[in-house]
């Protein structure tokens, strides 16, 4: 099953090959990056058949068995993340081929882009605490570089803030991993979970607390969110789409999914922490987004709010809770990437992201306005777009567990989301402007947005019923699977 490791290999190969050629030929660098990302998408699609036939695929790197070597695993839960990630990376890469021409050295972007993609793919396939940490650091350090890519003073300041807070998060995680190694003598997740069933509980609580704090810092849940608005609003737009749509979910949310449901199964109480963090970031993020004057900053606060939904749904648990968390991950990734690419296209034409400086885009950029409206309506939960289905599943999950207050808050926050997006639409899309001529926009900028918005439009009606069988398998894994079962076989 060499297809498991092929995304990581392809992206690493692409990073170092592009590093050799980018000075001579910048155009070729972009196309090389795009073709490598399409290749890795194809390999992940081919992998899907084996994953759903065999329930899970376990791969021993170098042929070494479980407690000794590096072990990789893909099951239906990680496959859904892997598929979403790898199908969106080519679109973002396609968009950046034109967008990155604004900057002086676009060739460098593709190197770091390939590295961050390799890191994110690596997190999703590894079954080893230390490997997760290593890939997390590859992805994080690449993201610090990408945030500071424009080299303006504010960007470097945002990147510095992000770097320091990111390293604090990584340090918390590595302390937890060190305690695990000291306590059990193993770093393999399956082996650890098997041994941990016999350990004393208060020691494990401390490790779990470190992991929740560290990964929430990467996810930017409420008390750990300070770096996100600066970093995501000042980065180049495709990078914001990558970070907000995929990076925070893959590096933070996916490990949280695994830790809460599959690794530390002996602490069901830990879900209450996630409900609290999720509610706090939902409320805080949406209230902060109302009053922003910069569009990208508003989107960044909206990301905090929507990530809160995922964490809340994971905390509520049960079939509907887990289903809602997975669905909201997929649809929010699609919608938020679409919105950031959208604002990137506007920024490419007008060089500004301030609300007051943009007017009457409806006549100037009709396609951009259409796709942007689809993204905004989707995030605010209007049927039949994607996020409506995930939000209603989350509300159902809260009602099923008799958390009526939480369901009410979900509805209210969704309304507030609609409110600030409607304000944005009125101010920048549908306001009157004296000059109203259609502006030419590059094909490369437009096509990724059109593809994403078609996916969002069809997601609720066509895809969700058809992919439900795969989602059910992922939910089954979150409900019933623990890594210890791999060792018992």
């Amino acid at each position, binding site marked *: 099953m*060499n297809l498991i490791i092929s995304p990581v*290999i392809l992206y*690493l*190969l692409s990073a*170092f090959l592009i590093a*050799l050629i980018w000075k001579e030929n910048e155009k070729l660098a972009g196309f090389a990056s795009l073709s490598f990302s399409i290749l890795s998408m194809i390999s992940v699609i081919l992998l899907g058949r084996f994953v759903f036939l065999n329930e899970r695929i376990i791969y021993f*790197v*170098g042929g070494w068995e479980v407690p000794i070597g590096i072990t990789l695993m893909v099951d239906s839960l990680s496959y859904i993340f892997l598929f979403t990630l790898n199908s969106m990376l080519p679109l973002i890469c396609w968009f950046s081929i034109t967008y990155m021409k604004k900057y002086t050295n676009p060739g460098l972007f593709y190197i770091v882009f390939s590295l961050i993609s390799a890191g994110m793919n690596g997190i999703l396939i590894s079954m080893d605490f230390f490997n997760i940490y290593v890939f997390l650091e590859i992805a994080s350090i690449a993201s610090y570089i990408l945030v500071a890519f424009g080299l*303006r003073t504010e960007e470097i300041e945002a990147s510095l803030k992000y770097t320091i807070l990111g390293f604090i998060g990584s340090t918390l995680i590595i302390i937890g991993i060190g305690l695990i190694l000291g306590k059990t003598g193993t770093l393999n997740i399956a082996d650890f979970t098997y041994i941990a069933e016999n350990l004393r509980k208060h020691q494990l609580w401390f490790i779990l607390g470190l992991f929740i704090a560290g990964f929430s810092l990467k996810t930017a849940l409420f008390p750990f969110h300070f770096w996100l608005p600066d970093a995501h609003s000042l980065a180049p737009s495709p990078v914001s789409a990558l970070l907000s749509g995929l990076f925070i979910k893959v590096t933070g949310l996916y490990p949280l999914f695994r830790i809460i449901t599959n690794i530390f199964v002996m602490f069901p109480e830990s879900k209450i922490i996630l409900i609290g963090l999720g509610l706090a970031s939902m409320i805080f993020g949406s209230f902060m987004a109302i009053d922003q004057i910069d569009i990208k900053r508003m989107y960044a606060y909206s990301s905090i709010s929507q990530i809160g939904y995922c964490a809340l749904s994971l905390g509520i648990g049960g079939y509907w809770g887990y289903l809602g968390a997975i669905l909201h991950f997929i649809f929010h990734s699609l919608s938020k990437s679409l919105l950031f690419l959208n604002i990137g296209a506007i920024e490419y034409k007008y060089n500004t992201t301030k609300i007051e400086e943009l007017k009457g885009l409806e006549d100037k950029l009709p396609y951009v306005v259409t796709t942007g409206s689809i993204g905004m309506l989707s995030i605010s939960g209007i049927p039949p777009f994607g996020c409506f289905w995930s939000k209603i599943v989350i509300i159902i999950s809260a009602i099923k567990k008799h958390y009526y207050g939480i369901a009410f808050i979900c509805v209210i926050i969704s309304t507030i989301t609609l409110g600030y997006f409607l304000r944005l639409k009125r101010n920048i899309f549908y306001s009157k402007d004296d000059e109203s001529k259609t502006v030419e926009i590059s094909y490369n900028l437009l096509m990724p947005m059109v593809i994403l918005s078609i996916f969002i439009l069809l997601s609720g009606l066509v895809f969700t019923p058809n992919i439900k069988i795969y989602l059910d398998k992922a939910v089954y894994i979150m409900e019933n699977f623990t890594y210890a079962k791999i060792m018992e076989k």
Partner: protein
Amino acid sequence: MNRGMSEIVKTISKIVAPFIIIFGISIVFYGHLTPGGGFPGGVVISASFVLLLLSYGKEKVLSKLSLEKSDILHNIGAILFLSIALIGFLEGIFFLNIFNKGKLFSLWSGGNLLFSNIAIGIKIGTSLFLGITLLSMVRIVCKDNKIEYFEKKEDIE
């Protein structure tokens, strides 16, 4: 103009630098038998270049190992390491050690470990040198909310 440090430092570092490189290479080659390996060996190799950089100034070092050359070398080191891992695919598994294992405690005894160490040594040696040299060459000044880069100390004012 007499650049760099005093004559004593220059003479000693000129004598010592080749030995440091050889010591680094031996750490790389015997990584699978003694403590060390590609990373520490690479650090020692780059340290000898940094020693020359500190004592003689950047011109002398860059005439021996130019920035372009080390830029290409460190990418080639990474690709070499990846391709050693890919050789395992010949028998079906990533990173599989398919070479002949040789005699115990001799230089040829770890299969692909020796090649991996050499690849990492190239990568770390050149990239660390590249990083330190670039940091020593460029001065970054933040003035009136603008960042400027200077290559010489005299240009700043």
